[in-house]
């Protein structure tokens, strides 16, 4: 009786650990007052004219910053886009003026919302590839990092406003 219970608790503890200390933390990039974490991209089919990049940006400074440009040798062009879904209709637009990261705020580029839009990738993105990208922030300057090509989460878990309220740990 006690053994399975212990094993269960151990497993639960490991789950919490892995959720709280994801391996992505080891790859955090510090640039000025910003911390950039979990830069990733999704695999693209052959001849896909676009790709998408994601990451989380936290501003630990006392002034707002802004992601104003992105570039990559892996694509012809990288734009900063916002996808949204309203009434079942998908729309995607360049973000005018860039993405503001307020002091103390964390902004996620994630499926269903903001993304780095890779236009005309030079070759398909394959699982495990590292896609180099440089991001330019108004205050913190330009930072280079690699996006790891990963399997995206199931869409039901990634819609903005969906993942958060159903997170049993409450997120914060």
């Amino acid at each position, binding site marked *: 009786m006690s053994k399975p219970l212990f094993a269960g608790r151990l497993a639960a503890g490991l789950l919490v650990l892995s959720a709280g200390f994801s391996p992505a933390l080891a790859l955090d990039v510090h640039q000025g007052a910003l911390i950039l974490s979990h830069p990733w991209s999704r695999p693209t*089919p*052959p*001849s896909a*004219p676009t*790709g998408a990049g994601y990451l989380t940006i936290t501003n630990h400074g006392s002034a707002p910053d802004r992601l104003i440009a992105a570039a990559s040798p892996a694509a012809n062009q990288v*734009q900063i886009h916002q996808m949204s879904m309203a009434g*079942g209709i998908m729309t995607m*637009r360049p973000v005018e003026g860039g993405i503001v990261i307020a002091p103390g705020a964390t902004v996620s580029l994630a499926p269903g919302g903001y993304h780095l839009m890779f236009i005309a990738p030079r070759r398909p993105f394959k699982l495990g590839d590292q896609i180099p990208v440089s991001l330019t922030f108004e205050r913190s300057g330009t930072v280079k990092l690699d996006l790891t090509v990963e399997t995206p989460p199931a*869409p039901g878990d990634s819609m903005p406003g969906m993942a958060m309220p159903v997170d049993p740990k409450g997120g914060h």
Partner: protein
Amino acid sequence: MARRWFLAGVVAVMIALGGAAALFWPMGAGGGGGGVGGRSVGGPFSLADQDGRPVTEQTLKGKPTAIVFGFTYCPEICPTTLTNMTAWLKALGPDADRLNMVFVSVDPERDTPAQLKSYLSAFDPRIRGLTGSPEAVARIAGEYQVYYRKVPIAGGGYTMDHSSAIYLMDAKGRFVAPIAFGTPFDSALASLRRLIHP
């Protein structure tokens, strides 16, 4: 875990209802033959598949159909839907051959049959990619009451706004139900099984 799935289900249903209501009211109480103002979803069309073979509404009849509208320039929604379609076909096993899976491009200027063939090679080969002249695409979108719009992007190029739901049609080409984008995998799979075994 149970609560999480329950909530996800509720949200998915809300999205499904909201999404459908924006365009048409899809289901009567018993489902089937839905439409708005007497107009039904679905109808005649004439397009070509990724191998250049002609496909019309008659080609699809005899088997139920799951049909979705998208474009290959789409970085997220369309590859996700096609990834799901591939996984559903695998999960359906032998039943998969009793169903048509169709991806219609709303961007025929860029999505030629050759482009669709290359792009779709990453997914289950049973998924048929359809494209045609802009007029032919406008016609099928009208028949299916699908919204799409070309939107120029500053700095060149354009994107397409488009309906994201998958429409389930019966073997006679009559509308049954939508699967909203973001519907949990298993609940969508259950809808496909019901479509195959009504």
